[in-house]
């Protein structure tokens, strides 16, 4: 997994820099997610390593599929990936690209797990609190999970803030 990220990093950085230069990060997001969607199809994915399918054939095939979805630069990028045999990196590149983009725009993705569903006001309030805490704009994704018993569990990347009753019970169990 880490090897894939290492391979994908230079591509993602290049794409991100290009997108910033031309101010087209939205278009690039679209390009990458479309390519990822195409590759998630099993038939296409199977062709990547198929010796019977040559590079030129693969390129024409993918260009046909993506014709009206990719812009000029997007299709150049596709050519480059096919040339370097790195098409399988697309999902990793997309993930890294989105991380860079969010970082640049000052957004942070946060998963919130709660025991009881938020009301609209409490959600608003909680959002503000998180923004103050992290000093960034927050993209909040809320999941309701009654196994927490009570409270909330906030997850931002590696960081976990456990304010749930379940967590506290575990803490108590450990202490005893």
């Amino acid at each position, binding site marked *: *997994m*880490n090897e894939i*990220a290492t391979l994908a990093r230079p591509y993602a950085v290049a794409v991100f820099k290009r997108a910033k230069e031309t101010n087209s990060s939205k278009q690039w997001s679209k390009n990458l997610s479309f390519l990822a969607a195409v590759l998630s199809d099993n038939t296409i994915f199977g062709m990547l390593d198929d010796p019977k399918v040559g590079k030129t054939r693969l390129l024409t095939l993918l260009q046909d599929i993506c014709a009206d979805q990719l812009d000029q630069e997007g299709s150049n990028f596709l050519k480059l990936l096919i040339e370097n045999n790195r098409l399988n990196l697309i999902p990793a590149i997309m993930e890294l690209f989105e991380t860079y983009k969010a970082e640049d725009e000052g957004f942070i993705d946060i998963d919130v797990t709660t025991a009881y569903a938020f009301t609209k006001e409490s959600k608003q309030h909680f959002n503000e609190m998180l923004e103050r805490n992290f000093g960034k704009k927050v993209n909040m994704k809320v999941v309701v999970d009654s196994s927490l018993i009570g409270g909330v569990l906030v997850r931002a*990347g*590696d*960081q*976990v*803030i456990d304010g749930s009753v379940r967590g506290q019970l575990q*803490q108590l169990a450990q202490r005893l």
Partner: protein
Amino acid sequence: MQLNPSEISDLIKKKIENFDLSTQVHTEGTVVSVTDGIVRIHGLSQAMQGEMLEFPDHTFGMALNLERDSVGAVILGSYQHISEGDTVRCTGKILEVPVGEALLGRVVDALGNPIDGKGPIDCIETSPIEKIAPGVIARQSVDQPVQLGLKSIDSMIPVGRGQRELIIGDRQTGKTAIAVDAIINQKGTGIKCIYVAIGQKRSSVANVVRKLEEHDALAHTIIVVASASESAALQFIAPYTGCTMGEYFRDQGEDALIIYDDLTKQAWAYRQVSLLLRRPPGREAYPGDVFYLHSRLLERASRINAKEVEKLTAGKVTGKTGSLTALPIIETQGGDVSAFVPTNVISITDGQIFLESNLFNSGIRPAVNAGLSVSRVGGAAQTKIIKKLGGGTRLDLAQYRELAAFAQFASDLDESTRKQIERGQRVTELMKQKQYSPMSVAQMGISLFAANEGFLDNIEVNKVLDFEAALLSYFKSEHAELMDSINATGDFSNDIGASIRSGIETFVKTHSW
């Protein structure tokens, strides 16, 4: 230990009372792969080098490789229940082990947990296993002896408090025997001992424990065990654990002696961990930092001055220096001291005790090769009497070694050469000593005096040890005061010399052996 039910519930009640309901903030990661005790973890971007990581079911690991997208960690203990996708937490702590007086007389594993079935250990303090050795300012030169109780070593290769003296030799040459004798001889001297067994059979560890118990030496000893059946990670950290426990005594202004038995196996364990972590292999497939592995460990054995002790104990202990003496053991293969790990450790330590299998097999036990063994700093720490009398022994043996080849032509040799050979044979014989029978300074002094002054020259070689035993028991019964005063001060003067001489002369005239 007996616990009655009310005690337990009281304890629980107290714990519940003091339980603070704080929101936990921590960093989490996910296990990506588990291979032979090595785990790769995605996430954990905040992890520190050497940090303790918490796995499910109270298993702990240590972060060793911090890479761009992942963390490589070793699991301390069994790893069968850990699987891909498990969450791992940072604890924010470098690996720590319990330290303190309560550990004395106990057998613990590499994490400081008791394994001797004598109940929990009541330690208040813990201390990180990896620490930086004391600096230049904090140190004091070595000038007090550690008596190992072995004639051949104390007279020719003396060890001082705070010194690192390597014990090196092939398998079955009596390396551990020297270490165990050294521990037994520290009984009543106030020197605390730590015996770290790395990669050994459990049966041999049990043997050492039993022998120490028999000789009443377990009470001042901590035994740290990472046996051959335990994971390589535990074998790799065990010496650091022992060192931390020893440093506690050093920093309290006391003296401690630590024995690493043996560092070859630790290097093997570290090689295994490193290769599994995919660190590039170097000479003999050891990783690049195998020198640092041992140098940072042995550098922590030191003598620190009274000022530093005062600082470390916050003024509670004044006017006392602290020391940690290390006796690392290295096992060579076929007498090859030029292999990678032996040369490294030889260059790190302040001297070595070199044991040879052919000496061992010819009955010279301890099988010390006096020519190749040295002590670079111990001379300054020797007691006066041993220093004065031991010098002659070393010289006699050195001259004897040069001439030993001619011993079979004894009848054709000139008078002085023959005398040297005969003296050498008797001194070699005198240097033999039984296991588990360490000698006091006075006993050694009298034996050495007898050899130096030629009292042995008229005794048959195979009677030398009988003569010595009879002589010492005579001195014990007739000159107990003289012995006590030598043991107390370690001084040697013309008066003392004269009284020893007259004692031996009377003994020779009146006794048989």
